[in-house]
């Protein structure tokens, strides 16, 4: 039975290139140019799917993205699920399976659902499955619901990519209207982007036998495509779906490239000065009892299979219509050798022009289909007068139906442009545009070729809408949404229960919520609601058209941007050294990848950190402080600016000196802390915490550009202009001497919180005396190109003193021992400078600076404050988890604080911690209680400093 339904000639397939494929395990043959659907029909395969809810047998209904019934899952390299068979290009070796049935669509065990279908009307699950609870039912419901299997692997070869494009005119759809628009714009020299979802240009002309000025219309298409091909200003893409219309005329196109193995799909983000929507129209279904039986197809799809693919899906055809478009279908089918038994037209008067096309075919005006015989295959249809009556059974093996045409307004509507219901066309058509776009051709309601192109010959369109067949004795389910198994009764039930807004109907019945998003059925739902409520379709309105127009793979949306493209990381010239020396590297905030610690073989984190800490406290250590945010500020008004920016006074600094300060937001929260140095009269250098460098930059620039545009302050980000090795520990000065420098390092000549320019180890350097560890420290800043050299020299010069590299974990311990602030730990939006024991940083002298008024106002409320304290667990060997709450007496009640940090202090040989504790300043010496799930840890409240409380060492 090889391709029993294939016509001897015709169609746009290549008969010289036969392809073999498998469907549900069985081998078949088709031709290059086939879709899976056309090949299955050519082979006479009728039952291709089972329905979602009732597991009714289903066949192929349409011929394009509107296909509601036959979804397949592709195997092997092509693996992907839920693909309409009508949009799967046939390839050699293709293997496809039906979704939603087991073991096969011919014999599907789920079909038992049909027996108790009356117990599962729309929304039945809201009314039942409640006892004892949903969990009892959920697993089986979930299993029954999902369609194809989820993809198991990423594509094993090939990739996705994304591109940007700008164009004068973007045209969606390469049917006659789109091609015309492209020719017009292209000839005018505009940059044109033409994108069409099918493999070949032509749109509806591909499926029909039309002429333009007496010549086959496809000849005109070929000429147009050739002319566009010759225009350098025109980009013409096929297999490219415009699936989203965003704000400011940005549209997204998904281009599939089956012929190019390495590139799977490409995503285009196109910004267009003007958009032309030539998206055509979609035929809608007729709604009658058992309108889902295999062999019942959209009329124009039958025509498409004949003309486009050379397939005649059946021999004895009945057509059922409410409009003119079924008549050319009948003529084409008859021309291909089918016996067209009858045309049933619900209209009482069929236009003469239509009748003329089918002189030899019986036309029954004012007649509808009100029943179907056949379960897995239509065998006969019941033709009944519109007003009712006994009617007659007509034997057939194919029923083509046409409920009229909907302009494809998805993109139009996505652009936020409005729709109106056109009574003549009985369809929603574009109304007023919200962006620079226009609809042309069938998308604009010009449904026939004569309206679109001069010389186009086509039967004029005329329709008398029939939203559903209403015959009293009609038996069987009449489907509005074939994919989601939504029937007319379901809509009636929704309305009966008060779910009478079209959005309620959609949600209650799930009509239009499938993969096809209701392309063939939504309008019938709207029509049914309108008739039932006695209002117009305009007043019922449509549900919202959402992107994507058709499903798009996430791979294409993501492009090639995973991992480091989306999340780039920053690192310093010492990274390679760090890796070579066994550092454990990780994300340390603000996208910096830094060494956490440097374990020796066999050493764990704690041992390594202890070793590094001991080196700094007792000998010398060095860390790479390059990520610290650094900005150079220049100009006459910098002192005024810094005094506004920081809570303490900066303007009084002398050149060469620096000061630690706090920055607040104007609502009184701590924004950042850092050090400001005055380089000379008008040049300043400020540092920010690593994590907040970008935010502080934004903050400063906003202030200067929007609040104080007249102030003379120039800001240069110099974070990456300087790298530094910070040498810290009692032997730091010895290491500096060993490195060799022309800077006088004596404490008197070069005191704490000052800087000197000079050379270190022969490299030009700026040395700064700041300390984030509490020890004597020299921050040696050099140009990045010298950093690796400096680092090597420091390690070499430091070796006699036992220098160790210090990671961020040890740095954390060292700052906690000193009670130095870490914004990520101690500052959580609830504390101010006073709470942190840094009231000295809140200038009383300055009349105004950011945050001053707000801190005052907040403190005036008298609400209890949490203050920074030190905590010593009563058991010195008891570690407290960071973040652990403090509660009164350790009881299970509202917290009175939390542990912000807890570290093993090598200097104290015990765990020490910092905490925010309600009224903490007054509670020193008392016992507070950490509440954990499994117990209470009593802690002694102390001052927040555990090493060198007077700061002698860092000044030494």
């Amino acid at each position, binding site marked *: 039975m090889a391709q029993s339904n294939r016509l001897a000639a015709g169609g746009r397939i290549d008969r010289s290139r036969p392809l073999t494929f498998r469907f549900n395990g069985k081998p078949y043959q088709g031709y290059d140019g086939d879709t899976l659907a056309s090949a299955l029909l050519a082979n006479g395969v009728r039952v291709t799917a089972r329905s979602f809810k009732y597991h009714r047998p289903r066949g192929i209904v349409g011929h394009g993205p509107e296909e509601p019934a036959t979804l397949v899952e592709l195997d092997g390299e092509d693996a992907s699920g839920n693909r309409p068979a009508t949009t799967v290009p046939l390839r050699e070796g293709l293997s496809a399976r039906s979704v939603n049935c087991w073991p096969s669509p011919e014999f599907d065990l789920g079909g038992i659902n049909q027996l108790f279908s009356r117990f599962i009307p729309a929304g039945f699950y809201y*009314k039942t499955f409640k006892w004892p609870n949903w969990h009892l039912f959920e697993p089986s419901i979930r299993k029954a619901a999902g369609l194809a299997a989820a993809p198991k692997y990423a594509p094993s070869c090939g990739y996705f990519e994304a591109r940007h494009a700008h164009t004068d005119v973007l045209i969606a759809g390469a049917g006659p209207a789109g091609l015309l628009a492209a020719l017009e714009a292209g000839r005018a020299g505009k940059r044109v982007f033409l994108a069409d979802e099918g493999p070949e240009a032509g749109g509806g002309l591909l499926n029909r036998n039309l002429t333009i000025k007496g010549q086959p219309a496809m000849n005109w298409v070929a000429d147009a495509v050739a002319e566009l091909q010759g225009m350098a200003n025109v980009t013409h893409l096929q297999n490219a779906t415009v699936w989203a219309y*965003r704000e400011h005329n940005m549209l*997204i196109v998904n281009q599939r490239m089956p012929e190019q193995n390495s590139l799977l799909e490409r995503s285009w983000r196109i910004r267009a000065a003007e958009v032309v929507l030539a998206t055509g129209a979609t035929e809608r279904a007729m709604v009658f009892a058992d309108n889902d039986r295999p062999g019942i197809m959209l009329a124009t799809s039958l025509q498409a299979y004949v003309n486009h693919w050379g397939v005649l899906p059946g021999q004895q055809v009945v057509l059922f219509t409410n409009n003119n478009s079924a008549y050319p279908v009948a003529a084409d089918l008859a021309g291909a050798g089918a016996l067209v038994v009858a045309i049933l037209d619900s209209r009482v008067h069929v236009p003469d022009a239509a009748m003329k096309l089918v002189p030899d075919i019986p036309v029954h005006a004012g007649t509808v289909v009100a029943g179907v015989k056949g379960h897995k295959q239509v065998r006969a249809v019941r033709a009944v007068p519109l007003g009712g009556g006994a009617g007659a059974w007509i034997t057939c093996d194919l029923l083509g139906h046409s409920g009229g045409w909907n302009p494809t307004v998805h993109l139009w509507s996505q652009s936020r442009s409005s729709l109106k219901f056109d009574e003549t066309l009985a369809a929603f058509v574009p109304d007023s545009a919200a962006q620079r776009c226009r609809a042309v051709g069938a998308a604009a309601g010009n449904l026939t070729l004569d309206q679109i192109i001069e010389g186009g010959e086509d039967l004029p369109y005329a329709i008398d809408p029939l939203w559903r067949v209403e015959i009293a004795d009609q038996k069987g389910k009449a489907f509005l949404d074939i994919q989601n198994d939504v029937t007319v009764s379901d809509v009636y039930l929704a309305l009966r229960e008060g779910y009478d807004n079209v959005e*309620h109907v959609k949600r209650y019945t799930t009509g239009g919520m499938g993969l096809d998003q209701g392309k063939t059925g939504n309008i019938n739902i709207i029509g049914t609601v309108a008739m039932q409520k006695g209002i117009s379709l305009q007043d019922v309105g449509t549900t919202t058209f959402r992107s994507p127009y058709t499903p798009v793979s996430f791979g294409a949306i*993501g492009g090639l941007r995973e991992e480091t493209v*989306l999340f780039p990381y920053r690192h310093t010239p010492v990274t390679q050294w760090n890796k070579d020396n066994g550092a454990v590297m990780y994300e340390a*905030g603000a996208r910096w990848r830094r060494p956490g610690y440097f374990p020796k073989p066999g050493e764990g984190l704690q041992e390594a950190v202890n070793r590094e800490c001991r080196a700094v406290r007792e000998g010398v250590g060095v860390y790479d402080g390059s990520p610290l945010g650094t900005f150079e500020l220049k100009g006459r008004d910098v002192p005024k600016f810094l005094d506004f920016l920081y809570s303490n006074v900066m303007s009084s600094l002398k050149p060469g000196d620096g000061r630690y300060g706090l920055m607040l937001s104007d609502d009184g929260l701590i924004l950042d802390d850092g050090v400001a140095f005055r380089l000379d009269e008008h040049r300043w250098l400020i540092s920010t915490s690593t994590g907040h460098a970008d935010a502080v930059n934004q903050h400063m620039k906003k202030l200067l550009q929007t609040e104080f545009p007249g102030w003379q302050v120039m800001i240069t980000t110099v974070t990456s202009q300087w790298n530094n090795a910070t040498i810290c520990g009692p032997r730091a000065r010895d290491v500096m001497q060993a490195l060799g420098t022309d800077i006088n390092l004596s404490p008197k000549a070069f005191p704490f919180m000052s800087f000197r320019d000079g050379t270190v180890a022969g490299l030009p350097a700026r040395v700064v005396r700041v300390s984030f560890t509490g020890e004597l420290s020299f921050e040696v800043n050099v140009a990045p190109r010298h950093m690796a050299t400096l680092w090597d020299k420091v390690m070499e010069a430091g070796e006699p003193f036992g220098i160790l590299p210090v990671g961020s974990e040890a740095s954390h311990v060292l700052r906690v021992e000193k009670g130095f602030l870490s914004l990520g730990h101690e500052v959580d939006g609830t504390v101010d400078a006073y709470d942190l024991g840094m009231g000295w940083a809140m200038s009383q002298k300055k009349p105004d600076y950011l945050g001053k008024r707000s801190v005052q106002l907040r403190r005036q409320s008298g609400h209890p404050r949490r203050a920074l304290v030190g905590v010593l667990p009563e058991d010195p060997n008891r570690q407290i988890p960071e*973040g652990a709450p403090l509660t009164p007496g350790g009881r299970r009640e509202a917290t009175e604080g*939390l542990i912000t940090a807890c570290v093993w202090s090598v200097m104290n040989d015990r765990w020490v911690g910092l905490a925010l504790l309600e009224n903490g300043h007054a509670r020193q010496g008392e016992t507070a209680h950490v509440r954990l799930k499994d117990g209470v840890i009593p802690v002694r409240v102390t001052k927040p400093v555990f090493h060198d409380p007077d700061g002698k060492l860092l000044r030494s």
Partner: protein
Amino acid sequence: MQKYSIFSLARNALSGHRNWPLAWRSPALKDRYEVIVIGAGGHGLATAYYLAKEFGISDVAVLERGWLGGGNIARNTVTIRSNYMRDESIPFYVKSVAMYEGLTQELNFNMMHSKRTMVDIVQTWPKLRELRRRQLVMDIYGSTYEQITTDEVRRRIPALTGGGPDARLPIICGMVHTDAGVNRHDAVAWGYARAADALGVEIHQQTAVQSLIRGVDGAIAGVETNRGTVRAAKVVVAVSGHTTTLTDTVGLKLPLRTMNLTAFVSEPVQPLVDVIVNCPDSGFYFSQSDKGEMVIGGAPDMGQSFRRDIKQHVFEDTVTAMLSLFPSFKKLKLMRQWGGHLDIAHDASPIMDQTDVPGLFITAGWWGGYKAIPAGGLTLAHLVAKGAPHPLMSSFTLDRFRHLDFILEAGTTTAR
């Protein structure tokens, strides 16, 4: 109220489902009510229900501009959880989660509540520290959060094949919030509407409030609608996103602004992921609906907007982050996406209070308040009925702004 059960379903099946009563009435609009609730979204309907149920106030009109259940409740990702950080927030959400669990029985409407736990995928140490902090505070209030190893994370989520040791952000561990669940958002709206209606509450759809009316004493007097004036001494504004649009009409100034949040779903596929997956370091979260769709959300777009917009670059970033951890999703397809707008307060925590206009109440600033609907409705009803805040929400009043005492939960998760 017709009792919904397997038996009523069977009985109605025999009569062709022709005898089901209306889920709610469409009564005539009166010119005066005891309480007007503006907005038939989750919070508005729940507030009306609890006013009638708990406080005996049934002379309530819920006025809805569009269709009931059509606001943010129609377009959210149904994540219900209580993993917050502050003492002010946790007990409120613990209550809300508990109420959700009993809602199917309480309202006799199947919410399809699926308590399926949420797994946070931790990829940075600062995030782990923050989540551990939450874990220990949450325990005080009976909310659960447990750390699990990366191996255990992968066992629970087999599709999670990215984030390995060589990845840009390797997975450090997981945190499991067993209280979390998902349910069916439409059912929540419809269940509350039906139950409130049965208690005498009137729901008026297609009734757009155009402005608020103050009396000569300055107190609220009613509302002006497209169907005429309706009076009440108490008016509740529950119109996420449009709060200031209404309160502007009486010159009220509130610390709120409106922005977009979007979500999207994949094609339906067979069951693959049994938990809610939240990836705060990567910036996305998702769960698989009972229909098989992956319901995915990402970061909000902070720009002010009433357009219910989808920002392509924000959307692409969310997708790309997801593909880094779930590379097999490259072959999964986007089926539908949408945006909603919502309002956010200056400190990003909610506001439920009586305003400076006596009798005018607001519930706002939820920026994703789905999980808060039951407790929000109950506590707001308490405030409206008794004139004093319910203890669970007393921190969420406007008073906190008078002293700039913010409740800062921001940045604690993407799954808001």
